[in-house]
């Protein structure tokens, strides 16, 4: 008797050996990330993670990251391998090619690091990163990252809920927004001195206070169980998984509670292309390209890994209520 398979496999779907090998590596990485989170000992480095060189940090941070609360939920997406997460970046302070940040971010000195907390809060001031991290619980979170350029990755971050930190500074009733600023120092970030740049440095981003307080919103200090490499925004970066990647500002030196909606770099540069909200939305296209689908990286040559983009990047259950009654075509 001939039993017909329920799902016929198209020829294009049959996996070439190179891709198959890559997938095996994936699986090792996925397992490895869990094992890593559980591993004790500072800076435990499994052999299969390519050493990016820049993924170094002080021992206290390595220890803290190694002790982070492991991610409890089931991971259904395949993780993007460490080597790709750390070599394919938009971090224009170090160049405009995707490979530039990994090559040129060695000038950034993320330790020691101070963050200024300012604006409408009872407590403000400049704090050492170490002191800020003493106030919060580090957790591993696996998030999808959807870039406005229509590619995406899945990354195991290590960080803490932004809200957990912000509450401790007791924002006042006038704190309607939270504004973030990246380091401004062309010695450490050479492209900030470029005459051809379209961005007015330093890079700035912002969130509405309820977005900032949402439990999904993360301030990350690590990925794949290691301190953030410079090219990924060391030592402290925002991760807002339901918004396009450019909202997730890197190498943060200032967090300010504001009453008015703060200016944000890409929105100021091209307001018709990049909104303040920048929620992932397959129904609202960028003026120069469609946002209905995305290429999940790594993408194979003969099997472009194209998937449908989900509303709020698949986090609608957690965040859709924040935008009730808003016209998302207008507030893109």
């Amino acid at each position, binding site marked *: 008797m001939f039993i017909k398979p329920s799902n016929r496999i198209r020829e*294009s779907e049959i996996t070439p050996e*190179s891709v198959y090998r890559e997938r095996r590596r994936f699986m090792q990485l996925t397992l490895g990330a869990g094992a890593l989170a559980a591993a004790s000992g500072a800076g435990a480095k499994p052999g299969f993670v390519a050493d990016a060189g820049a993924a170094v940090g002080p021992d206290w941070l390595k220890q803290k990251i190694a002790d982070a609360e492991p991610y409890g939920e089931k991971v259904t997406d395949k993780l*993007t391998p460490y080597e*790709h997460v750390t*070599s*394919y970046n*938009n971090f*224009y302070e170090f160049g*405009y090619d*995707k*490979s530039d940040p990994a090559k040129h971010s060695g000038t950034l000195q993320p330790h020691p690091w101070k963050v200024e907390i300012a604006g409408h809060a009872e407590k403000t001031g400049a704090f050492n990163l170490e002191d800020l991290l003493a106030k919060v619980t580090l957790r591993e979170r696996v998030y999808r990252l959807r870039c406005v350029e229509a*590619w995406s*990755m899945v990354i195991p971050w290590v960080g803490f809920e932004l809200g957990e930190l912000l509450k401790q500074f007791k924002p006042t009733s006038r704190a309607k927004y939270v504004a973030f600023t990246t380091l401004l120092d062309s010695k450490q970030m050479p*492209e900030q001195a*470029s005459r*051809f*740049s*379209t*961005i007015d440095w330093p890079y700035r981003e912002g969130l509405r206070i309820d977005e900032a307080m949402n439990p999904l919103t993360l301030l990350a200090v690590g990925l794949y169980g290691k301190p953030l490499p410079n090219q990924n925004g060391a030592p402290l970066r925002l991760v807002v998984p339901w918004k396009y990647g450019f909202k997730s500002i890197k190498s943060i030196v200032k967090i300010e509670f504001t009453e008015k909606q703060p200016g944000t770099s890409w929105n100021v540069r091209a307001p018709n292309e990049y909104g303040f909200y920048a929620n992932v939305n397959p129904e609202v*296209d960028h003026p*120069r*390209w*469609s946002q209905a689908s995305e*290429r999940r*990286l*790594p*993408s*194979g*040559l*003969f*099997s*472009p890994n*194209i998937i449908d983009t989900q509303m709020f990047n698949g986090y609608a259950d957690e965040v859709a209520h924040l935008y009730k009654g808003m016209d998302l075509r207008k507030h893109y």
Partner: protein
Amino acid sequence: MKAVTWRRLFIFMVALAPFGWIFYRTISQQLGADPAKTIVLFTGEWAIYFLFASLAVTPLVRSAKWRWLMPHRRMLGLFALFYALCHVASYLVFILGLDFSRFFAELVKRPYITAGAPAVLILIALGATSTKAMMRRLGKRWQSLHRLVYVALGLAWVHVLWQVRSSYFEAVIYGILAALLLGYRLYWRQKMARKKAL
């Protein structure tokens, strides 16, 4: 062999080297997270470089007296076409997965592709008419047809400019080069006109 043949062989090998380099990086899996995009950008950039190279021949022959270069102009132009075709082919195969319905959607959605497509069509037409036989057959019209290369260059420039995100660097450099090459031709035309008047 004659010197010109050696030179032809040498230029051919050098012009093919970028292709060899990207081919090697592809088969040895060194293209990173998004190999398709890397290949498409790489071949597109080399198409533009060869377009500039072929347009630089005339000024170099006229003003720097590099007469030996003239017989190789055609090959430089054909390499611009070669890399442009690689650019389009890798876009169709690696980015779109040969899904042509998406191609037409992209053509409308992404205006920089709308600008780039006719540039490639022009290069194809120029490549097809680049033989000696075609030159003879077209006579005077050959020259006017091949002036379309300036239109192709302009379109390629717009194609780059419309993709600018964080830096104008590339677009500015290409713009300056194009202006210099065009400016030289205007200067030469005036110079010749004055000579005639005398």
